[in-house]
C-alpha cells in the first residue's frame, strides 16, 4: 500500500465520519421536528445564520425548517463550561464519552452503502470503506464496546443517580445482545448454504435478498432484532439507563458541555448504525423493492441505472432512504409509547425475546436443512 492509497483511504474515512456526524446532527433535528409534529407543536424554527438566513425566500424557509438549529446546538455544547466534578475518577470520566462515540464510527466503516457495476470492467463493485469478511461479527464486537462507555461513566461519576443508570444499562445491554445475535444467525445460516463460500459479509447478505427480503422469510427474527436494537441503543421504550423521570438522565447526569454532547451524538450514531444494520439484514439493503433490484430495472427499461456513478448514487440513495425511514421509526416510537420499568425490560429480554430467538433459530436451522435436502 503506497502513500496515495493511504491518503485516499484516509480521505474516504474522513468523508464517512463527516457524513455520519451530519446524519447524527440532523437526526437530532429530526427528533425535535418529528416530536413537535407528533405533539402538535412547531419545533425549532428561529435559529438563523446571518448570511444564509437572509437569502430572500430560501433563507426564511430553511430557518422555519430549523436547518440551522443543529449548528447552534453543537456550538452550545462546544462553548459551555466543561465541568469535571471534584469527586469523579478523572481518567474514566473523560474516557467514557470517547468510548460512547468511537465504536459507532468504527462500525460504520464496514457497513456497505450500495453496489454498482463498474462501467469499464463490468465487475460488481461495492460502496464500502472496508469490505471485511467478518462483517457482522465486527459490527457486533465493536458495538458491544459501547456498553463500557455507560458502565465507566456511571462508575467514574462516583454519584448515585449515574451509578444506578450505569447498572441498569450494563444489565440491559448485555441481556439484549444475546437475543440480537441469535436473531441474526438464521439469516447467515440461509446465506451460507452448503456449496457457497462461508462468509459473514453484509454484502453477501444483501445480494442474497435480491428476491426475498429476509423480513418476508424470517419475520420473527426481524421483529426480535428490531426490538433488541431499540434496547441496545437505549431508546424508548427501553431507555432505562436515562429514564429522565426517575434517574434524571442516568449515567450522563454529571456530564456537561462537549462530553455530554459526545454521549448525545453517540446515541444517534448508534441509532444510525442500528438502522443501517436493520436495513441491510432484513430489508434488502440497496434493493429498491422485494423481487426488484436495480439490475432488474436496468433490464426492463434499458437505462443504465445500475452502472457507474448513476448506479452508485441510486443504490446508495435507496439504502439511505431505508436508513432514514428506520431513524424516523425510532423517533416515532419514542414519542408514542411509555417507558418500561427496569425489571420488566429484563423480563422481556430473558423470558420473551431470548426464547423466541432460540426457537426461531432452531426452527429455521431445521427448515433450511430440510429445504436444502429437498433441493439436493
Amino acid at each position, binding site marked *: 500500500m503506497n502513500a496515495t492509497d493511504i491518503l485516499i483511504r484516509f480521505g474516504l474515512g474522513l468523508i464517512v465520519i463527516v457524513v455520519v456526524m451530519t446524519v447524527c446532527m440532523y437526526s437530532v433535528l429530526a427528533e425535535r421536528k418529528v416530536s413537535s409534529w407528533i*405533539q402538535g407543536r412547531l419545533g425549532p424554527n428561529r435559529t438563523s445564520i446571518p448570511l444564509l438566513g437572509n437569502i430572500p425566500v430560501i433563507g426564511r424557509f430553511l430557518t422555519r425548517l430549523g436547518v440551522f438549529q443543529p449548528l447552534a446546538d453543537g456550538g452550545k455544547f462546544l462553548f459551555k463550561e466543561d465541568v469535571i466534578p471534584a469527586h469523579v475518577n478523572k481518567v474514566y470520566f473523560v474516557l467514557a464519552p470517547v468510548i460512547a462515540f468511537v465504536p459507532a464510527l468504527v462500525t460504520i466503516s464496514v457497513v456497505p452503502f450500495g453496489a454498482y457495476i463498474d462501467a469499464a470492467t463490468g465487475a460488481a463493485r461495492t460502496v464500502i470503506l472496508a469490505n471485511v469478511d467478518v462483517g457482522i461479527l465486527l459490527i457486533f464486537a465493536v458495538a458491544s464496546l459501547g456498553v463500557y462507555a455507560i458502565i465507566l461513566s456511571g462508575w467514574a461519576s462516583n454519584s448515585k443517580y449515574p451509578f444506578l443508570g450505569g447498572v441498569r444499562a450494563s444489565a440491559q445491554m448485555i441481556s439484549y445482545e444475546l437475543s440480537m445475535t441469535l436473531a441474526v444467525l438464521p439469516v447467515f445460516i440461509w446465506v451460507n448454504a452448503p456449496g457457497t463460500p462461508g462468509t459473514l459479509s453484509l454484502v453477501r447478505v444483501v445480494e442474497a435478498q435480491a428476491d426475498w427480503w429476509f423480513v418476508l422469510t424470517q419475520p420473527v427474527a426481524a421483529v426480535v432484532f428490531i426490538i433488541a436494537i431499540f434496547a441496545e441503543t437505549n431508546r424508548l*421504550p427501553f431507555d*432505562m439507563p436515562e429514564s429522565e*423521570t426517575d434517574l434524571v438522565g442516568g449515567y450522563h447526569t454529571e456530564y456537561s458541555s462537549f462530553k455530554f454532547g459526545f454521549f448525545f451524538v453517540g446515541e444517534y450514531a448508534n441509532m444510525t448504525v442500528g438502522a443501517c444494520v436493520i436495513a441491510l439484514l432484513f430489508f434488502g439493503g440497496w434493493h429498491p423493492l422485494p423481487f426488484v433490484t436495480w439490475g432488474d430495472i436496468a433490464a426492463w427499461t434499458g437505462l443504465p441505472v445500475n452502472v457507474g456513478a448513476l448506479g452508485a448514487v441510486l443504490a446508495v440513495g435507496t439504502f439511505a432512504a431505508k436508513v432514514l425511514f428506520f431513524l424516523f421509526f425510532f423517533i416515532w416510537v419514542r414519542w408514542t409509547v*411509555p417507558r*418500561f*420499568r427496569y425489571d420488566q425490560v429484563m423480563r422481556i429480554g430473558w423470558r420473551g425475546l431470548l426464547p423466541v430467538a432460540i426457537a426461531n433459530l432452531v426452527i429455521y436451522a431445521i427448515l433450511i436443512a430440510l429445504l436444502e435436502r429437498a433441493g439436493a
Partner: protein
Amino acid sequence: MSTEYTFPDNAARSAAAADAPEFETEKLTINMGPSHPSTHGVLRLLLELDGETVTRCDPVIGYLHRGDEKIAENMTYNQFVPYTDRLDYLSPLANNVAYAIAVERLAHLEVPPRCQAIRALICEMARISSHLLGLGVYAMDTGAMTVFLYTFTEREKLYTLFEELTGARFTTSYTRIGGLARDIPEGWLGRVARFCDGVLPVVDEIDALLTRNRIFLDRTEGIGVISKEDAIAWGLTGPNLRASGVPLDLRKDKPYCGYENYEFDVPVGTKGDCYDRYLVRLEEIRQSVRIIRQIIANMPDGPWYAEDAKKIFAPPTDKILTSMEELIQNFMLVTEGPQMPAGEVYFEAENPKGALGFYIISRGGGVPYRLKIRAPSFCSLSILPKVAVGCMVADLSAILGSLDFVMGECDR
C-alpha cells in the same frame, strides 16, 4: 511455639458459607428531589434502596412553606383571596370558591343563583384544567411525553378562557366574599361550550393512547395499591379516595354551589392502584364537561353578588372621591376589613385534588383569629411511605404522578 493450623472440615465450611452472605451488600440512601422531574415541585424523598427496590421512603416537605395560615391572621378576609390562588396553584378558581364559601358561611351570606352557577362552572373548569395537567404529567412520568403535550394544548385554551374571565391566567383571584369580582363577559359561555366540545376528543385520544396500552398497564396496574381502609385511615380525599372504591364526593354528599341541581356520576375505582386513579381522573373530566354543559344550558339571570355583600365589596372608585358614604366604607374596609360575626366555621369543597377545607375561627372584626387550611395534597402525600415500600424506583414516579399532589397546597 506451635504453628499448627486446623483445617475446618466440610460440614463446618458449608455451615459458615450458609451464614455468610454471598456478597457484602449495603443499602443505598438516595435523595430524590427537592428538585427532581417526577416530584412535581419541591418535594424531597429520602429513599433507602436495596438495589432498585425501595425499602424506605421518607417524604421531606416544607420547601414551599410560606406560612399561609399565619399570614391569614394578619390580614383582612378580603386580602386573603389572592393567597388562596397559591394553595393548589393548578386550580386557583376552585380554591377561591372554597374560601369564599367558607367566609360566607361565617357571615351568613346567601349568594344569588347566578353567582352559584358561575362558581360551579369555574370549579368544574378548574377541575378539568387540574386533571388535564395531572394526567399529562402522570403520563410523562411513565415515559409517554406526547400525552403531556396534548393535555397542555387543551389547558392552554382553558387558560385563555380564565384570562378573559378574570384578567389573569394563573392566579385568578376571581371570587369575592359574597360574590364574584365581575360578571362573565359577553359570549364567554359560548366559548366555554366550544371548549367542551373540543376537549372530549382529546380525552378520547388520551384514552386511546394509554388505557389499553400494554406498557402503561404494566407500569400502573397493581402498583401503589391503596386499600379502602388505608385510604380512609390516611384521610385521602378526592380522586385518590374514589379510586380506592369509596364513593365520597362532596359535590354529591354535601352539595354546595347548587351541585344538587346537576346530574353527574361519581366514578369509583375497584383496586386503588395507579391505574384506577388514572381511570377515575379521566372519567371525571368527562363528568365535569357534562356538568358544565348543564350549567350553561340553565345559566340563571340576576345579580352575581349578594345584596348584603355590598358592605364587604370595595365601593366603586369614582364614588369614593365624591360621596361621603363610600369614602367611609372604603376607609373602614382598608383599615379594619369587612366586619364578621364571632364564631367558628369549617367548610370543605370538593377540589380537583380532594377536599380542600377552611376552618375559620372569628372573634369578630375584619381579621380571622385563626385560619386552618386542610390541604388534600398533604393527606395524599402522607400515605407515600406506606405505598412506596417494596416498589421499584421507577414505580415511584408512577405513584407520585398518580397521587397528583401540589406542593403549594401541601406546604401551605
